[in-house]
């Protein structure tokens, strides 16, 4: 028997604010898979598309998604796949079956990473304090995914259609990033869902 513990299971929630400028929601236990292969190899790209239902994005800092998966471009031969909780095992098996004999790698990172969503009217201020990446909408439009630093820790940041940000961070940094956010959002009010 295994039981899952959220990387943020232990944190003490801040007191409820009447007006929270920033809201943090942990999208815990998502399936995180790292996929590597040669994007010039037609057999590889078509196998990935067959399994995922979307073509692997090849433009730098881009992402694609459908109902089952979101795919981030990480570098010219590497992608991060985000699937629903519990779907990572089947997705990995399907990819391996479809790519039988190819020079590829699929790695399950689900227990090493977690995903948090940040939203709220004071989000731009908090992003400016927290990341070196320029989050102005002219530089960071909806649908873009960038690997950068957040509070000096590595993060993959995705701009969602509703204007919020999804951050993929390392599990071991979740506690530190939460404490950073608690402090960085102190003047705006932080709500945790």
């Amino acid at each position, binding site marked *: 028997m295994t039981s899952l513990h959220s990387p943020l299971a232990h944190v003490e929630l801040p007191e409820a604010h009447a007006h929270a400028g920033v809201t943090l929601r942990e999208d815990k236990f998502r399936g995180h898979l790292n996929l590597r292969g040669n994007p010039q190899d037609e057999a590889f790209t078509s196998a990935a598309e067959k399994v995922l239902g979307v073509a692997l994005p090849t433009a*730098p*800092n881009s992402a694609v998604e459908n109902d089952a998966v979101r795919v981030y471009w*990480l*570098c*010219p031969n*590497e992608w991060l796949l985000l699937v629903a909780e519990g779907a990572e095992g089947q997705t990995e098996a399907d990819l391996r079956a479809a790519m039988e004999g190819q020079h590829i790698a699929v790695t399950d990172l689900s227990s090493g990473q977690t995903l948090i969503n940040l939203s709220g009217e004071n989000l731009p201020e908090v992003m400016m304090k927290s990341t*070196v*990446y320029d989050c102005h909408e002219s530089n960071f439009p909806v649908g873009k995914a*960038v*690997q*950068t*630093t957040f509070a*000096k820790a*590595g993060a993959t940041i995705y701009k969602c259609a509703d204007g919020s940000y999804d951050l993929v961070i390392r599990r071991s940094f979740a506690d530190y990033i939460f404490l950073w956010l608690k402090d960085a959002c102190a003047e705006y009010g932080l709500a945790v869902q």
Partner: protein
Amino acid sequence: MLHIYCPYCEELREEEEFSYSGEAHIARPTDPEALTDAEWGDYVFFRKNPRGLHHEMWNHAAGCRRYFNATRDTQSYEIHETYKMGEKPSVTSQGAAQ
């Protein structure tokens, strides 16, 4: 802070995302056994330390995690170009940009 253009991410990023990785274009000897100790020592330990243009490797450590090359002026810190691994610099001390 320097803004460095990553040739793989195809955008300017903050220096904080990068780490410096030393002189570029050092080819590993094809037949190490045939080298003298002095030649092997040169390959392993000795690096250029120019005042002016320098071709060097950087790693986009917090980004795509790829290594790439940069031509940087060690005196002014100006980065003249960045280019992918396996490519040749277009700015050199022989033919530096006017």
